[in-house]
């Protein structure tokens, strides 16, 4: 699986690098960055020295950054030409994920806010699971 031809067109996601050093470094750097980002996330969520309403958005940004770290350093997704197919598939997946999440939150939020004259009937607090 690891005999890479010089003119290799594609590489599998997560496929190891060629040199032991660069490969180990990749995982170590990834672990370090992920630990730092996780630490910042937990600190941001606990501290009271930041502007409260912005904390949730900041946490989401930190999470997206950490996902990027995992993709690059653990799954070896790069911008290189041998990664084009992996990146295209990822881009499509990310698009669907955002459509589903933002679309649902947007529509369901407006639905809860706008429907009917009797808000207590539609109050989500009174819905049973």
């Amino acid at each position, binding site marked *: 699986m690891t005999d890479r031809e010089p003119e290799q067109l594609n590489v*599998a996601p997560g496929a190891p690098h060629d040199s032991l050093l660069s490969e180990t470094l990749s995982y170590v750097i990834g672990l370090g960055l992920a630990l730092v980002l996780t630490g910042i996330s937990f600190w941001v969520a606990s501290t009271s020295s930041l502007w409260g309403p912005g904390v949730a958005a900041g946490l989401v940004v930190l999470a997206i950054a950490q996902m990027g770290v995992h993709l690059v350093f653990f799954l070896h997704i790069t911008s290189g030409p041998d990664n084009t197919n992996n990146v295209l598939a990822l881009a499509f997946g990310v698009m669907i994920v955002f459509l589903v999440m933002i679309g649902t939150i947007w529509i369901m939020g407006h639905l809860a806010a706008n429907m009917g004259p009797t808000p207590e009937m539609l109050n989500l607090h009174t819905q049973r699971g």
Partner: protein
Amino acid sequence: MSATEAAAIGLTHNASEDTGLGHRGPESKSIVVPYGFWLFVLSDMVLFSALFATYASLVHATDGGPITSQLFDRTTVAVETGALLLSSFVCGLAMIAAKRGNMAWTQIWLVVTGLLGLVFLALEIEEFAGLVAIGAGPQRSAFLSAFFTLVGCHGAHVTAGLMWIGTMIAQIWAKGFHPHIMRRLLCLSIFWHALDIIWVAIFTIVYLIGTLP
């Protein structure tokens, strides 16, 4: 199939037309199999996005029951997060050892990967049992239904991953580093790293944002 036939249906390329694809047929299995698995992993993330959307829609539908900030313990979540992240890292080390055909280190790192995954799973089961014990089970409110579905689905994936790790330990031991075994191992590592990516979203959206003051 003759060469002209193959050319007619696009399996080969004339030297004159540069398609950017080179002059070869399909990629080898060592590329195609992990790529197909990558597509599965991405579709799994789409599945999780639907569960996240459900959770976000129902997180305030507590039916007078407990709310997020009363239920979640950040210390447990921090330990779970650390265990899963280290597990993902050690899984990478196992791949490094496997690529170089080092049986001992491959097995050691895979066992450590599995043990760290077990730590994560044990903490999660303990958390779930604690919630059910205080009457905050999945039947309590729409919020808790969505919570158990989302986090439980991730936990089910981790459970499947642990069984897969056990299987790979046995297969590498019994069959050695054959190409088809290496393909399975690479798919396992993609799966395991992807679970950690999904956990990043869970600990941020469910646990950290859910317990903001």
